[in-house]
């Protein structure tokens, strides 16, 4: 009987230790979103970059104050000239979109409200050295390191990383031997003057709450 009681207590003790260890691991585990945004651009930053989305090259101006505050402007877009002048303002979970074609709208309750967020994948530092999918392709004349990745459809991506910030300063894509520049912010100047303070969101008549969700999407057979 005494042995049984000891066994019971031991079981409870071991179970408690397991639960405590699990809780401790969960609490100590870094938030992956926060971990990914610890380094990066020094805000505030002003960039003008060219992005190629497959329809053509688009020149975009980015005013970056923090991981939760930025503004973009579509300066030049030969493939979609009707959208030139389009502005997107993001501030802590609310976003105002001012579009010459679609009009103006304020989106509230966005799911990134309490998280760092970025408008573009290039602006987030990545650990290329620790990623087996990427190959070190050496250092260029500016001291930036080139990382290369071949996609499973034969597309080669080249990311050129500033060693000081870990941020991609230029992105290239090679398809059938032809190189396309997707992104390039080399030599950009930091934000100065009155742009150093983020202005409030512009006032927009149409307000849409993005907090609710529709039913699950259905799946169709592949094409």
């Amino acid at each position, binding site marked *: 009987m005494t042995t049984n009681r000891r066994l019971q207590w031991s079981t409870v003790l071991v179970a408690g230790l397991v639960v405590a260890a699990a809780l401790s691991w969960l609490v100590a585990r870094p938030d992956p979103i926060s971990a990914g945004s610890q380094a990066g651009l020094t805000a505030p930053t002003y960039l003008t970059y060219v992005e190629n989305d497959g329809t053509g090259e688009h020149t975009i101006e980015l005013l970056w104050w923090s991981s939760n505050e930025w503004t973009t402007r579509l300066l030049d877009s030969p493939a979609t000239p009707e959208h030139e002048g389009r502005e997107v303002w993001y501030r802590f979970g609310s976003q105002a979109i001012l579009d010459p074609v*679609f009009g103006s709208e304020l989106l509230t309750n966005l799911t990134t409200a309490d998280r760092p967020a970025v408008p573009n994948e290039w602006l987030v530092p990545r*650990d290329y050295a620790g990623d087996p999918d990427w190959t070190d392709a050496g250092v260029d004349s500016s001291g930036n390191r080139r990382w290369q990745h071949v996609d499973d459809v034969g597309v080669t991506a080249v990311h050129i990383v500033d060693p000081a910030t870990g941020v991609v300063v230029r992105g290239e894509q090679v398809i059938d031997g032809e190189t396309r520049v997707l992104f390039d912010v080399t030599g950009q100047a930091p934000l100065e003057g009155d742009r150093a303070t983020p202005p409030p969101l512009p006032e927009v008549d149409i307000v849409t709450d993005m907090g609710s969700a529709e039913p699950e999407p259905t799946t169709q057979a592949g094409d």
Partner: protein
Amino acid sequence: MHAYSRRRIAGLLLGVTLAMSVLGIAAAAYTPEKHDGVPKYYNSRVGYTDLGATVRIDSREFKGGRDGGAVRWRQQWIRDYVGGVLQVSHGPGSWATNIPLSAWFVYSGESHPTYSSTVTVNYRFEYEECNPGCYFWYAGDVLPINHVITP
């Protein structure tokens, strides 16, 4: 009897001609896929039927995350615009994870309006990636993802 057969053949030919003309006009098709250069993160297309003077939207479809690297992603909206005026708005959708490249997803409750003028179907996505660093971004805000369909 002979005249009846001739009428019958003429009727048959007329029927076939009419059917072919209807089938020729009402052609079902998809818009070209739109993505971010490399179709890794998201993809979209619109299924439509050209009825001649009008066009009917049959499906608004999307897929993504082919390498399983996406933690989650979803369509935030799909909107139809005619002449800059909003006609239909759907979304946001539910979060999806690890969607295989071979599958297209459509909203079960979406509408199928018919338009007599050029319609622009506009998409917006949210995407979260964690390989190796985690980040989150919107696709279709800085550069709009548009599918333009003209009857």
